[in-house]
């Protein structure tokens, strides 16, 4: 066991990890941050997406000890302290961009990263960016729509609702 220290959502945390402990496991089991979900074991589904030093990372592709000293952000840190949802979270609720909620934390973190890189993405750019995040419920329609809305684009012409 190794002592691992990192900053998660702005707070210094530490805990013990085996060499094989994944960052996703460390967050969930070690720190009790169960908002980060694990939907596969081949790094395909993206439900466990977090930010490490500002970069979008699937937390199942990284060992906890590799994140020693890093700044980690998870979905739990996205809303304001008083519970006010972030612009992205509000857009997902407003446009029904989630159903069962399991892929949602990964989608929120991926969207945050996308909009940081590309503040006004086109539909095609959004769809391409999300190719590492699988959702089984929504058929992606309302996720793409929510992301366009979160980036300040007019989505009133997009069909349905």
């Amino acid at each position: 066991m190794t002592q691992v220290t990192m900053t998660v959502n702005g707070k210094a945390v530490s805990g013990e990890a085996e060499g094989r402990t994944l960052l996703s496991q460390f967050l969930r089991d070690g720190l009790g941050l169960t908002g980060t979900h694990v939907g596969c074991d081949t790094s395909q589904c993206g439900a466990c997406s977090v930010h490490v030093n500002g970069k979008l990372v699937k937390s199942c592709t990284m060992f906890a000890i590799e994140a020693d000293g890093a700044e980690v952000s998870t979905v739990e840190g996205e809303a304001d302290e008083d519970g006010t949802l972030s612009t992205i979270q509000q857009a997902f609720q407003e446009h029904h961009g989630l159903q069962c909620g399991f892929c949602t934390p990964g989608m929120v973190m991926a969207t945050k990263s996308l909009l940081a890189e590309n503040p006004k993405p086109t539909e095609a750019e959004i769809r391409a960016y999300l190719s590492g995040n699988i959702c089984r419920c929504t058929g992606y329609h309302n996720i793409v729509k929510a992301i366009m809305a979160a980036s300040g684009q007019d989505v009133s012409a997009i069909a349905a609702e």
Partner: protein
Amino acid sequence: MPADGGIGASTKRREDVRFLTGNGNYTDDINANGQAYVYFLRSEMAHAKINGIDTSDAEKMDGVIRIFTGEDFVEVGGVPCGWEVTDRFGNAMQEPRHPILAHGKARHVGDPICAIVAETLEQARDAAEAIELDLEELPAVIDMKSALAKDSPKVHDELESNLCYDWGFVEENRDAVDEAIKNAHHVTTLELRNNRLIANPMEPRVAIGMFDRTTDEHTLYTTSQNPHVIRLLMGAFVLGIPEHKLRVISPDVGGGFGTKIFHYAEEAFCTFAAKAVNRPVKWTCSRSEAFVSDAHGRDHVTKIELAMDKDGNFLALRTDTHANMGAYLSTFAPSVPTWLHGTLMAGNYKTPLIYVNVKAVFTNTVPVDAYRGAGRPEASFQLERVIDKAAHEMGIDPIELRRQNFITEFPYATPVAVEYDTGDYNATMDKMIEIADLAGFEKRAAESADNGKLRGIGVNCYIEACGIAPSNLVGQLGARAGLYESATVRVNATGSISVMTGSHSHGQGHETAFPQVIADMLGIDASQVDIVHGDTSKVPMGMGTYGSRSLAVGGSAMVRATEKIINKAKKIAAHLLEASEGDIELKDGQFTVAGTDKSVAWGDVTLAAYVPHNYPLEDLEPGLEETAFYDPANFTYPSGAYACEVEVDPETGKVTIERFSAADDFGNIVNPMIVDGQVHGGIGQGIGQALLEQAVYDDDGQLISGSYMDYAMPRADDVPFYTVDHSCQTPCTHNPLGVKGCGEAGAIGSPPAVVNAVVDALRRAGQDITHIDMPLTPSRVWQAMQS
């Protein structure tokens, strides 16, 4: 339509807040004090004799608490099947035992052989590697038709053959159908495969078993669509635990799509082991494990023949299907290719004679059971494909051929035992033509051609039977359960309401939509109403969520219970207002005496019910809580018309979906936003089936597509924005809300639209192609174009 509340409003979902902030409470987020972990050592062979299991080294390893094998479960019931199908000769289906852990033989890759309970999951996994399995590989039975050959090896040695049943429906029609087909002007024949799929809810299955020695009570947390059904099946048939000593909880569940209906061996194991080792026992399924242990879906091989007169009027329909059951009978497996499939073969059409033959077959593969639509997608796909082919052969426009055969008068009794109450198939067809802009197709096709692409359009209709199901009817058909739903409406003293429903929400938004109904009935704000579900100790009884039944059946139970509440509340109000009960009206949360300005508020009445100082105690009990069970009189019959436009790249065979339009009739709608979302999701899965997904077994029974590396899940860039519409509404006549259900429609209606579109694109390019089997991968389409 109300702006933000009540029936018909697109109320934003209240459950979203916890899901968006990482505060959902999924089963894997739950950890019990002192819990141990279980890892299942599963068969890597499709068919093997278990000659020996040596756990002696593994047992000595760090952290190992106990290792279980099939021997530990010899005295325990097997995983039960919930539906008995009678074959066409009047005999019961062949029903093999399904042990909790494999005993004697392993029958599919993924069949659990040992269960290692240890202090940590890593220790359990390490110990699994130290177990020595002496397995003797046997020939695997994979192909269904070969499985029925006389000399085929048997999946279950104790059964006569690999045939589960040979079902004929309607058996009395068999000769008449044969005769009609023989004498018809034209018969269109199509052979096709409905590809084997894996439901893949994003949350893998999880189970946590607990046991309290002081009270003898078991608790199971599980990722289920129907915790009461699990309690019944596991308690009564597997472990012999009475209901009052067994609590099953399904908290937030991350998608189901059918595969979380079933009772699985891992649930029974964790419940059993928690008592045996006197520790909570937790199992979290990995995705790789899910591929070989979650029940799969579809996997039908079908020949369908449609007989017509010279004008294209449908005269008779005959189908011959082989349906894969896998190695064991999963909970509802036998019902899927029979009663959920054969009864839908009339579709939207007045075909007078229908005969459906289904041979259900055991193979050395993962069990196959209901997946979104369950039998109805298989029915709709073959029917709508054969009609498309027939239109081509007869030289009739596919839309016109459908229209001329539409059922137009309701109620309509089909020749396959069901009676459609309402529908308007021309209306949804008209609406589809409008929203899909069929008039603009040729222009778009020309633009595609300019870009070197082949454009095609596919249309189809669908009908489904939802709101499952009348208990007395399904009982006659072999169901071993009733399919009603229950609801308890508990009005608190200050007027807020808790509704305990047996329906289960795992993405459908019940926590938002159900309060809309109750608030609408009472005229109070929906924020006053909370939904409680997913816990057998809180909800009296429940049959759960599947078959698009939650609102149609569960919602009806809520309405009935709320009506009882209103009746009692009116009595209390009449007493408070010193008026006759018959004069009391409830509107906007106020009880008034008709024709006067006398009124009393909802909250004053509810308070009086619990503080009964001024109360008719001699006539009425205090309190305000009512329970209703609702058993539907019939299925509901959502229907619709879909259109898909594709582009095919002639160089590569790659298909892209350019437009997808769905016009559905779901009857009345409670929350249009949620309904749209349900249709979107269904279409996404249907496109996945049509273009991408397939569970592939090799001849040795290895699952080749056993991870997301190989099983192609639809991703955001595989699908377009969809155009959906549900303004055509013919309300259901036999439930109080007039609702039909919307959960499965998209997955039923979309695969034939996609395939019809691709075939159309190739035909327009001069190719003589009548069918390509799903999934329509680039290589399949390209190969079809070369042949």
